[in-house]
């Protein structure tokens, strides 16, 4: 029980928030808007899973937003040209993985600090995309939207896909050897090396993984609307890092899990619609999200202090 205290407290906070909504703004709970909300957050969830892996491995990737935009636009163009989605999907994941591999090679191969490496690739990718596309939208044919399925079906497909990915990754992280390696490397890379793990390989793998997941997320994004906006990944990195951290993944590596990250994401994602329902002005949104992040880390800090 105490092992998952951190995750449970986020779930608790979420529950309190939802109960408060049920009392003060019951209109919040309507199936269709909630499904829409879930659909739009589905790609974010997929990226957040990857970010959780990276942070557990004691690295960080702030280039996900730019990767997301780049893959969205590239695969959007392919899809708009009529390439079959079944072909575009692996291309999206592959392109993401390739970009992730670039980060991974620099971080693991040259042992450069990940925050700076991904800062550089973030700027370079975003501006590179702007350079080529000049901010232009990609218009998608109808057949792409919701994979050509009816809207409601398509939305469910996306949400279920994201949840399935979450479940698969969450279970894999706990029950596959590879998942345990990530924890080991994040806790103490030197001890991991002595235990026969190759930390650099694990680190590289984690970056490739987040790249591939970001590619998939981009794919989940482009099927949602008739236009792909190149700015779509703007700020995604901070959003997912915040979600992951609120969800109890320690930035110092080795601690946390995907379920917590999921709860953290839900908590932050509910802020904007909740504000609308509570008729609080929109301008408080960022401040409240900031306060939630600080609250989460302060709670962590206090708890650790008490234990120490």
């Amino acid at each position, binding site marked *: 029980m105490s092992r998952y205290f951190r995750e449970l407290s986020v779930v608790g906070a979420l529950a309190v928030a939802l109960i408060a909504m049920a009392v003060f703004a019951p209109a919040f709970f309507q199936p269709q808007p909630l499904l829409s909300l879930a659909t739009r957050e589905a790609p974010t969830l997929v990226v957040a899973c990857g970010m959780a892996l990276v942070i557990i491995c004691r690295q960080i990737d702030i280039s996900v937003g730019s990767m997301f935009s780049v893959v969205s636009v590239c695969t959007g163009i392919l899809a708009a040209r009529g390439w079959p989605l079944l072909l575009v999907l692996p291309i999206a994941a592959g392109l993401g993985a390739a970009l992730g591999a670039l980060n991974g090679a620099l971080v693991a191969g*040259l042992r450069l600090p990940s925050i*700076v490496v991904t800062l*550089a690739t973030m700027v370079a990718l975003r*501006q590179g995309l*702007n350079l080529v596309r*000049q901010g232009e939208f990609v218009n998608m044919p109808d057949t792409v939207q919701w994979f050509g399925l009816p809207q409601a079906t398509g939305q469910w497909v996306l949400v279920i896909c994201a949840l399935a990915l979450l479940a698969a990754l969450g279970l894999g992280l706990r029950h596959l050897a590879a998942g345990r390696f990530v924890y080991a490397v994040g806790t103490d890379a030197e001890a991991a090396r002595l235990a026969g793990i190759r930390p650099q390989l694990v680190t590289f793998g984690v970056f490739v993984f987040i790249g591939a997941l970001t590619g998939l997320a981009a794919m989940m994004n482009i099927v949602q609307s008739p236009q792909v906006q190149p700015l779509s990944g703007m700020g995604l990195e901070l959003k997912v890092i915040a979600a992951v951290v609120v969800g109890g993944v320690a*930035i110092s590596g080795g601690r946390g899990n995907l379920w917590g990250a999921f709860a953290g994401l839900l908590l932050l994602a509910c802020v904007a619609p909740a504000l609308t329902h509570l008729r609080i*002005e929109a301008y408080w949104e960022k401040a409240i999200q900031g306060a939630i*992040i600080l609250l989460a880390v302060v709670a962590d800090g206090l708890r650790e202090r008490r234990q120490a």
Partner: protein
Amino acid sequence: MLLLYVLIAEWLFFYFAGTTVNRRGVTVGFGTLDRQFDILRHSCEIGLLALALTPVIITAGIDLSVGSLLGLCAILFGKFWHDGGLPIPIAATLALGCGALGGALNAALITALRLPPLIVTLGTYSLFRGLAEAITRGSVTYTNFPEGFLFIGQERWLGLPAQAWLFFAVAIGVWVLVHRMTFGRSFRAIGFSPEGARYAGLPVDRHIALAYILAGLIAALAAIIYTARLGQAKADAGTGYELFAITAVVLGGTSIFGGRGSVTGTLLGVAAIAVLKSGLASLPVVMRMNAAEEMSGVLTGALLLLALTAGVLPRLWSQRRARHAAVPKTLPTS
């Protein structure tokens, strides 16, 4: 040092490739004095933030909130002056105080609760920007500042853009702090080994707090200069500046792991980015592609990676050499 050569090469290249004589027989483009002053003027705010971040990063910390704090202080300054009816100098002083307070909030969370700076300042990054938006309800823009105030941001004084003097003053101040005072020593010791610094009896927490409070203060000064340059205070002021500032600091050779770094390096980093951006904007080819901003972004990213790689190459090389040298000796002796 490498960066200095890059900067000179960059500057010379743009001087020759980006300067032309126009139809009216006037020299225009990168080589004009006006453009050089513009570069200076436009780099003041990011330059200030980079200076603010240098001590912080030397202590192995990071402050993502400086850009947001700039926005918040700009708004508060506007509010004190416009809504509060206070004279400009008092409003500015109050805004500086608020900046220091914002820095103190970061410092308190980081030192008292031992929280990771990256996450604390990620939180305050949202919080400060959010407060700026909440205070103005997103929409209020403070304008119509008096001429005398706008002078700081828009006019020249003693030949240079007026804000450049403030910038240089802060640069000298931070340089002295980091390179000529015991604080700098302490920052470095903390950056290399916080435990080592504690065992040496240094007031580790107090000095870390100093770095963050100073960062807040400088961000507030940048806010005032920004307001004076644009003649407006708006909640979105300084959006994304933190990333440019961090880029400049790291480009200038300050290690994100702490300990190593210099103020001159930071200044060179700021200059390299500013010259690149402005220079590209005056190249005819780039102009026709209307992509100066984007291209400079791509090149800055590439430059940063290059600088980092160049930094570790000697290490990798010596490792490899050691391994090769060891090979013959490991052959069986029998």
